[in-house]
């Protein structure tokens, strides 16, 4: 009897939570539904808000006449969207590659070596990682203009490459590798480089992947930096697409918002486990 009660309560809690979650993902569902509507249906449903025409708003989670028109228009007939999407790819993947190139050795040094000054550097990296963009906005601007890379892709890429968060995150994962493994490798005659490539990299892989995922989400979502350091419209990332469109593009706005979030959602679905590990390791404990 008691056990059955416990079970019942568990089911009740689960139903409650499910309802809550449905509310949380409601925005995504509604956008997805809207992306399959044709222009007529969109106007009918959301015209009062989007186009300012008279009538009542009628939202729905299932389009009456599902069509891929909006996607086709976006992919085949909107060069703007294409350019901005490609910009986002270039900027985000360059940042990630740079973070690995510069961050991996630094994280290996901070995680596996004991040397004077290590703590100071860790503290420094930690403070830099929590500073909001606005604090470093002026200094960033001056240095980027000094190198005269303002209003180029580099203006967004370079500051991202030297963000300290991925270094911090990977450091924490490298620290967790048991000492005995590396000592054993040393005894067997492995040099510093060999132990990094044969032990550090494979065992630190969860850390590297979670740094990559968290930073992908961060830079795919970049808004402040491109807004401040880029002027030319053809250089802007896709995260700013929706704030730049006019009423005439509204028909494909839903499809655009789905395509903008698609890479992030895809990565999230594949690497949720790593994402959680990354969140847990972002704790500012040294």
């Amino acid at each position, binding site marked *: 009897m008691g056990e059955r009660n416990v079970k019942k309560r568990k089911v009740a809690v689960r139903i409650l939570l499910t309802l809550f979650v449905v509310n949380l993902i409601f925005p995504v569902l509604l956008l997805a539904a809207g992306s399959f509507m044709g222009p007529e249906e969109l106007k009918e449903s959301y015209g009062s808000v989007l186009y300012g025409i008279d009538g009542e708003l009628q939202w729905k989670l299932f389009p009456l006449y599902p069509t891929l028109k909006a996607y086709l228009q976006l992919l085949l007939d909107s060069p703007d969207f294409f350019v901005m999407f490609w910009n986002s790819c270039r900027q985000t993947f360059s940042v990630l590659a740079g973070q690995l190139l510069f961050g991996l050795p630094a994280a290996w040094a901070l995680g596996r070596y004991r*040397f004077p000054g290590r703590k100071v550097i860790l503290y420094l990296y930690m403070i830099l990682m929590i500073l909001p963009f606005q604090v470093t906005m002026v200094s960033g601007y001056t*240095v980027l203009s000094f190198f005269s890379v303002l209003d180029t892709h580099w203006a967004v890429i370079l500051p991202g490459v030297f963000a300290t968060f991925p270094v911090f995150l990977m450091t924490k994962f490298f620290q967790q590798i048991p000492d005995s493994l590396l000592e054993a490798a040393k005894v067997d005659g492995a040099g510093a480089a060999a132990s990094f490539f044969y032990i550090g990299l494979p065992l630190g892989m969860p850390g590297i992947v979670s740094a990559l995922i968290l930073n992908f989400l961060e830079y795919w979502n970049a808004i*402040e930096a491109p807004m401040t350091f880029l002027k030319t419209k053809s250089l802007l990332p896709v995260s700013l697409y929706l704030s730049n469109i006019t009423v005439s593009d509204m028909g494909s706005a839903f499809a655009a918002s789905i395509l903008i979030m698609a890479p992030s959602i895809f990565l999230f679905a594949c690497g949720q486990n790593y994402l959680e590990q990354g969140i847990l390791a972002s*704790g500012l404990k040294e």
Partner: protein
Amino acid sequence: MQKKQRRHWVKKWTSIFQNRRERITPWILLAPSLSGVCIFVLLPFADVVRRSFLNAVGSEFVGLKNYKSVLQNTAFELAAGNTVRFLAVCLPLLLSISLFLGLLLLRAGEKSGILKSGFLLPMAVPAGSVVLFWQLFFDKGGILNELLEQAGVRGADYMNTPKAFGVLVAVYLWKNLGYDMILWISGLLGIPDSLYEAAKMDGANGVMCFVHITCPLLLPTAFLTGILSLVNAFKVFREAYMIAGNYPHDSIYMLQNLFNNWFLKLDMQKMTAAAVMLALILGLILIGSQKIEEKWGRGM
């Protein structure tokens, strides 16, 4: 002669290098990252600190004048007040709701993988794509008002009244619930079951267990989650900017908006002074939190 000297140098340095290899290696590995950080963040920020004490042309030392003019600025007062109010409302709300949901999720048992994904999903949704939904939802004739109407409640204009503050709070909660929940759950799982069992043997009920076991042992987690939520609170500007632009309603005019507008007006003096102050405050919070954590680490 020259050749000999050079050879001597090379020899000297290789020997130093080999002797101190262990000591130098970490610095060689750190060098690329550290020099990048210096060039792109530290040196220019030092320049910002310097300029915050100079006049507009940068020729004269003016002491704390820039700082004073920031603190006396009415826009700054508004923005700083709003930011503090936002943090004071959001952080307790976010922390308590996410803890409650985390407890429920644990109660619901192990098969909640999908539920957890649902909670985390908003984290992955870029601000630049979900903005369309927020517009539809909070518009005067939008989804929220329509739902309220069906329930018999009169709606309101959310974006152009002080209710905009509530919109921002809602968006922040939506985005960060899952993130905080993950941190809480790991804290909760770290509390050994034996403690609860022992307490139950002694006749403690659920509430007593929560107050006397869960709460004190969760304190470090609470602290950490609080700091991370504070950091994430500054990122809500992305959503705020996408929804409301540079000049939103007064109730959600945040420090980030102010920085942006000073930047557009090239008001470098105020910007530099304000940036230094903000960096100082956040740095102090971080260092203070580290000190407290160290104390706890020793105490436990």
